[in-house]
């Protein structure tokens, strides 16, 4: 059952010779075989190459190589380019596309000796909050198969929560790591904009996208962040500075004395599930008991975040997705002229949510509308950012809920895009401001669904939020809870439930 272990546990066992990478990968593949029929996290499983890489990692370790990720299998969200593999973005339009190069984070994982296990499901082009907009398959919440896993990194969160991976990479544009982590009961980190190279991440909204880890513990997120962060000359927006050792800096001292934690009153919104509010307020109290000073902060412009987000993100997406035209790669439906070819290909290749956002983004950039929408949204974005800058003058980190409710039912909101958009109210401000944010399990609803605590940090202050998250997690046991799968078959009627 090595698939249930964390990165730090496995790296210690590998180092001690208590297990091999081949054994880990074998156990993970067995869990996938047993559970993924129900969970549906994976789009493709690189079984043979993963086992071959595991064998190689074992040989390297035997020859004296070390490293926390050497021989540890990681699942990859299917919008990261992995050389020689498909990269579908859960869309039909990339049917047949094979990535000719490695994303920088993939190259870094390879360098660290991690095993690339396979690619996991997501909302089409990361546009969605439930993984329901995937054109390639359904992913369910490991805690309750009737519920969504969240999104857009739903596959990443579900595979980690179901122990079908040791850890995963996702991407977060408006909450796409933190929200599924909260829904599935795992840890998710959205790094500061510029912390991790975006080169090779198929862009949704370039000024908001960040790649980050989804893991079983805060420490694992720190280890994975350390492996993928840093300047990349291929991404001009990545920061060029020395970074701390995120993983090693997390110690067994779980006190928070001397830390000021901000509590924004605007983040306990109307219509919030009382169980979510209670779990988060209890977590705040817990941090206080660990020695932190709780201060009230205000983020008054965050209430505009959804409106601003759906203008800026869709505007950028309308240009970013223009390249999917059937000319050079992916799906193509022929036409009498280029315009007809584009029209037919894109009509057949994109799903409804993607089309909705491309149309919205095209509209807000159009002549005569630019000033009223795009330009004004950029100005409000600055106000939202300034709120955070002011707040961080008073505190070291901010505590908030991740989502207003726990995971909702599959199909419940898929017909009402606006309702689904509004669920991102607590996560999008962080992307718009560019800060970092961490989602940590902090309780369960009476239905047995996980609830997440959001810890928001100042620019490039990942070390602070990891410290708070680690202290909270190590003094609670929410993160140790795992969904139970009644039987290990491919039967689709099994339902995960809490122990």
């Amino acid at each position: 059952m090595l698939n249930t272990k964390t990165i730090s546990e496995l790296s210690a066992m590998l180092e001690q010779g208590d297990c091999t990478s081949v054994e880990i990968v074998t156990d993970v593949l067995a869990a996938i075989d047993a559970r993924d029929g129900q969970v549906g996290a994976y789009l493709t499983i690189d079984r043979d190459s993963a086992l071959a890489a595991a064998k190689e990692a074992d040989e390297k370790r035997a020859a004296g190589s070390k490293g926390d990720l050497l021989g540890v299998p990681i699942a990859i969200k299917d919008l990261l380019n992995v050389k020689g593999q498909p990269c579908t973005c859960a869309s039909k339009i990339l049917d047949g596309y094979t990535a000719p190069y490695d994303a920088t984070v993939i190259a870094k994982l390879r360098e660290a000796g991690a095993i690339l296990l396979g690619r996991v499901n997501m909302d089409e082009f990361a546009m969605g909050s439930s993984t329901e907009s995937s054109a390639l398959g359904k992913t369910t919440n490991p805690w309750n198969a009737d519920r969504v896993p969240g999104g857009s990194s739903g596959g990443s969160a579900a595979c980690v929560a179901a122990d079908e991976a040791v850890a995963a990479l996702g991407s977060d544009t408006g909450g796409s790591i933190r929200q599924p982590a909260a829904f599935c009961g795992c840890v998710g980190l959205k790094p500061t904009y510029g912390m991790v190279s975006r080169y090779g991440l198929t862009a949704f909204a370039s000024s908001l996208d960040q790649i980050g880890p989804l893991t079983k513990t805060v420490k694992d997120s720190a280890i994975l962040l350390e492996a993928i962060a840093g300047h990349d000359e291929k991404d001009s927006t990545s920061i060029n500075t020395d970074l701390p050792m995120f993983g090693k800096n997390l110690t067994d001292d779980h006190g928070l004395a001397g830390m000021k934690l901000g509590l924004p009153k605007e983040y306990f919104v109307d219509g919030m599930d009382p169980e979510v509010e209670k779990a988060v307020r209890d977590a705040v109290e817990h941090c206080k008991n660990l020695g932190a000073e709780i201060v009230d902060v205000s983020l008054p412009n965050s209430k505009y975040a959804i409106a601003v987000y759906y203008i800026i993100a869709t505007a950028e997406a309308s240009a970013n997705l223009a390249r999917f035209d059937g000319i050079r790669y992916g799906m193509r439906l022929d036409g009498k002229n280029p315009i007809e070819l584009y029209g037919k290909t894109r009509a057949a290749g994109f799903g409804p949510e993607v089309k909705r956002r491309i149309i919205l983004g095209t509209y807000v950039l159009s002549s005569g509308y630019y000033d009223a929408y795009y330009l004004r949204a950029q100005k409000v974005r600055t106000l939202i950012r300034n709120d955070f800058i002011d707040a961080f003058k008073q505190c070291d980190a901010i505590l908030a809920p991740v989502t207003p409710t726990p995971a909702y039912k599959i199909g419940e909101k898929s017909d009402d895009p606006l309702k689904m958009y509004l669920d991102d109210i607590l996560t999008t401000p962080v992307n718009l401001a560019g800060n970092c944010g961490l989602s940590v399990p902090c309780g369960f609803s009476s239905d047995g669904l996980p609830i997440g605590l959001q810890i928001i940090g100042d620019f490039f202050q990942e070390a602070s939020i990891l410290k708070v998250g680690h202290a909270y997690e190590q003094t609670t046991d929410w993160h140790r809870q795992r969904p139970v799968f009644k039987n290990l078959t491919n039967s689709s009627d099994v339902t995960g439930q809490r122990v």
Partner: protein
Amino acid sequence: MTMKYEACIGLETHVMQKTRTKMFCGCKHEYGAEPNTNVCPVCLGYPGAMPVMNAKAIELICKAGLLLGCEINPHSKWDRKNYFYPDMAKNYQITQADEPICIGGEVPVEVNGEMKTFTLERIHQEENAAKNTHVSGASLIDYNRAGTALMEIVSNPCMHSADDAFAYIHTIKLIMEYGGISNCDMEKGQMRSDVNISVRPVGQEKLGEKVEIKNMNSPSFIVEAINYEVGRQIELIESGGEVVQETRGYDPDRGETFTQRTKENAHDYRYFPEPDLMPVEVSAEQISKWKSELPELPVQRRERYVETLGLPEYDAKILTAEKATSDFFDAACEKTKQYKLLSNYLMGKVASLVTETGIALVDSKLTANALAQVADLAGGAISSTAANDLIEILFNEGGDPKALVEEKGMAQVSDDSALEQWADEAIAGNAKAVADYKAGNGASINALMGSVMKASRGKANPPAVIAMLKQKLDG
């Protein structure tokens, strides 16, 4: 018609910079490579690929701006220009919309002997499109050119005739070549212009409705298109019609412009800031360093040739008309002080050799060093006839001038005993000239001189011959 109407013409001139690699990726920038061999995920618009700015291109556009009198913007930014066409892999072009890197500028231009100053609005940096070729039943795309560095020099609508535009393009081309910014080879598409044309009644300040003629690389077509379009617009207005804002093409076979796209169908490019690139920051130190590296422009060279080297204005103009000739002249001037002789050779014998043989100066065997030696020899050691003969040999075959003079017996004779013999023969054989001279016609000595030169096969030193003849006749 010039009594009543005035044309206002502005040019948007695209110039491909001489960079080793493309604007936003490391692919080689070279002309004539196998199609689609200089490509990568970035210039092919693959998912996840990101642009990285080429610093050399920024240096070149800033130097171009400094050469054209622009102000260098310390903070400029990138924008996306959205349009769907197979020549643009991402279906948007990275360009600079509202904060370009070079602002303003002015270009002194000589139009038919008159100096005029044409002003610029801006120069901005962008990336080039791929090359589309249409064959029967298919279109082929070569992405080798996609993403190469392209700058756009935008003039104000300050020109008023096809001659103005022609001279402006020629001047820009020369400055870009002199500055090492671009080779401006029009046949390779390294320089293309869009031309905006409007007409208005003389005296009216407001510009008329403009028509844009896109993507022309031949200056002579630009002249034809302007002349046709100005005439068309005036005729239209005089017959009670109105010029409509539109994009027109030029058909060189028919010598006419034709409607391509009307205003209603104009593209909405939906510009917005490029989130994948940081703004371009250029420091004052950087600008002054680039300023100090700027090469001399044709106008400055002309001034130097006249003021420092003492050449006539005419010579200076001819020598600087082509950078290669001017560079050759400058190199030769390093070796000799016979500037006027060098100029005479380049404008005379060398120019006629280039015309006769069809071989460009730089491709000939003649070196600047050798030409400088010829000029020094012509100061006394060889005659001007011999100098021209020597240049022809050097142009075709090369070699060491001094050794050739020796080998071919070209040295001028100043030796008294040899001269005396030729002088005596000339006096003996030209009784009439001798009589005329003695009768007071000083010019008659030229006939005797010619006779000596003929006898010496051009080798006699003319001043020495004159002295010898005078001594004999006057004595």
